[in-house]
């Protein structure tokens, strides 16, 4: 019974994770400029990938695999904001980030990242 419950919980996590992954890629396709796309990729993508790894941890029924999967989740949560931040900083300086359709830009006075 407990095993069945764990399987259902894992299935739920996996479906939610896959849905977030799908939403992240739709967001990367639909959103109008680089910085807004970055929101979709870094938030929905990280949550989606993390939830799928969490589902693997629940569904494996093996402590060794579960610990590795959870370490993977922690790794994703640490690295995703790092890479998003570095990419945003680099592309803002390189003028890749669209600066015209933006409501306010208080970074303009500064001449790019140093």
């Amino acid at each position, binding site marked *: 019974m407990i*095993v*069945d419950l764990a*399987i*259902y919980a*894992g*299935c739920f996590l*996996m*479906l939610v*994770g*896959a*849905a977030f*992954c*799908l939403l*992240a*890629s*739709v967001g*990367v*396709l639909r959103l109008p400029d*680089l910085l807004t*796309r*970055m929101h979709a*990729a870094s938030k929905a*993508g*990280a949550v*989606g*990938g993390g939830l*799928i*790894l969490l*589902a*693997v941890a629940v*569904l*494996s029924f*093996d402590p060794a*695999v579960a610990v*590795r*999967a959870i*370490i*993977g989740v922690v*790794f*994703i949560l640490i*690295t*995703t904001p*790092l*890479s998003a931040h*570095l*990419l945003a*900083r*680099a*592309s803002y*300086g*390189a003028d*890749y*980030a669209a600066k015209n359709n933006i409501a306010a830009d208080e970074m303009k006075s500064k*001449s*790019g*990242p*140093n």
Partner: protein
Amino acid sequence: MSAADVLDLTTMIALVMLGLSLLISIVRVVIGPTLADRVLALDLLTVLAMGFVGTVAIRTGLMLYLDIAIALALLGFLATIAFARYILAKNLGKAGKNDR
């Protein structure tokens, strides 16, 4: 419907959804107007591939796949960092010597 059937169906649905999202982000890699857009889409692509491999691990019961998923996450992170450094360096070269 037993729990095993539910698991089978769920992993199938998840694989279809992940495959669809892989295709969508490949579209962004192809059309992405700037280099940074493509790097962003590639970063998302590695996360999606990691989820895909994790789902395959559950579906086949071969937990060795999980190590591949984690290695893929590591590789994607390093690739994004390298690309971002490349964009930064290219930008610095263009700006001349008064920057840093």
